[in-house]
């Protein structure tokens, strides 16, 4: 039996085969509904281009936002974060963030900044080479939709702050 003949859930998978797709930013960040608090069971992932996104009280313009997840029980890795992806019809898989970004970033649209919506519980410094500034968080990350007199804004809140790594 060849690999192609194996049932999907048993076939080896490559990082580029992950269903990491473009999604409307509100869908990507789970902002379609109204919730008093962020949904801690949300496991969606993908990417979106946005004109503006707020990281705490700082606006980042023309950004490529990558929605990703790490598991609470992910081991500390020093300079990396273990990503986890839930997949249809098979168990979850993990990928190191550095490996994932090396494989996927060249395939994604260019923007003036890259923002990782990703919890980083061990506050790992990400030494990833990117052509534009990379923003990532320390601690947990939540998405929020703020509404005021001046309109709406999409905001990512980080438990211990945001890091900007310049290109």
């Amino acid at each position: 039996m060849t690999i192609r003949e194996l049932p999907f859930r048993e076939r080896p998978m490559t990082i580029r085969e992950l269903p990491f797709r473009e999604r409307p930013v509100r869908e990507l960040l789970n902002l379609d509904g109204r919730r008093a608090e962020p949904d801690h069971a949300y496991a969606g992932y993908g990417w979106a281009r946005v004109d503006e996104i707020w990281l705490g009280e700082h606006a980042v313009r023309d950004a490529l936002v990558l929605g990703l997840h790490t598991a609470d029980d992910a081991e500390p890795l020093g300079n990396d974060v273990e990503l986890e992806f839930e997949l249809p019809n098979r168990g979850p898989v993990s990928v190191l963030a550095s490996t994932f970004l090396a494989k996927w970033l060249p395939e994604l649209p260019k923007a003036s900044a890259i923002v990782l919506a990703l919890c980083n519980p061990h506050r790992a410094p990400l030494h990833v080479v990117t052509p534009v500034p990379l923003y990532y968080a320390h601690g947990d990350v939540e998405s929020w939709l703020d509404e005021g007199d001046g309109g709406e804004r999409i905001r990512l809140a980080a438990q211990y702050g945001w890091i900007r790594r310049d290109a």
Partner: protein
Amino acid sequence: MISKTKLLASALILALTTAGVGCSNEPDRVERWATTENTNVKIDWNKVNQAYRDASGPQDLEKRINEIYEGDELISIAVADQDDKTQVVTGFFDKNKNGSVDEGEKIFTIKREPTGSGEAHVQTVGYGPYAGYASPFWSITSGMLMGAMISNMFMPRYVPMTYVTSNARLSDLGSHRSSYRASNPARFGKASKSGRSYGGHVTKPSKPGFGRSSGFGRSSGGGRFGLARRGRTVRPERLTA
């Protein structure tokens, strides 16, 4: 003699400290809400810490802190830098309006200490009615998105800062806060005397999160970008290619 209220407050803080909430796996995470010994006016310490992280300078910080505080008093701040870039911000009720931190006026300190090249840590500690609160140390590095009040410490030409809220400034702060509260009726909808909670926080918040905006009208939660997986025995397959 320790009052019952103080014992209760201490027990509450201890319980909240050990319980942990939601998504964090930080063993030392401290509940952000604390109640005073003699009053029910709460301070959201997470927001105070965030205010320090975002402030552009001392005047911006005192404005943010007075927006956070829900009691009648105005909070003054005193900022004192040391040569090694250690900074101590003291929040106090300037009861005698003399512009200095006198006995019984101090309510918190925020201390920033360098820990290495391009790194520092910060801790907030409560005093007086807020005694018993101490935040975990939180780290800052030179690449972080922060307001100028913190980030300036990483500039080569950093000039040590000294500041205290003046009597004239207290008047401005009072006017600003009145306007702020008037524009946030959902949170400040009911007049209050010192010692009582305001309308928006009579009941305990459903689940205090670190991400709720303090300055925007209304916020809806989206998602969290971590997965609850504690206790599992089988690790997911790791893709490498």
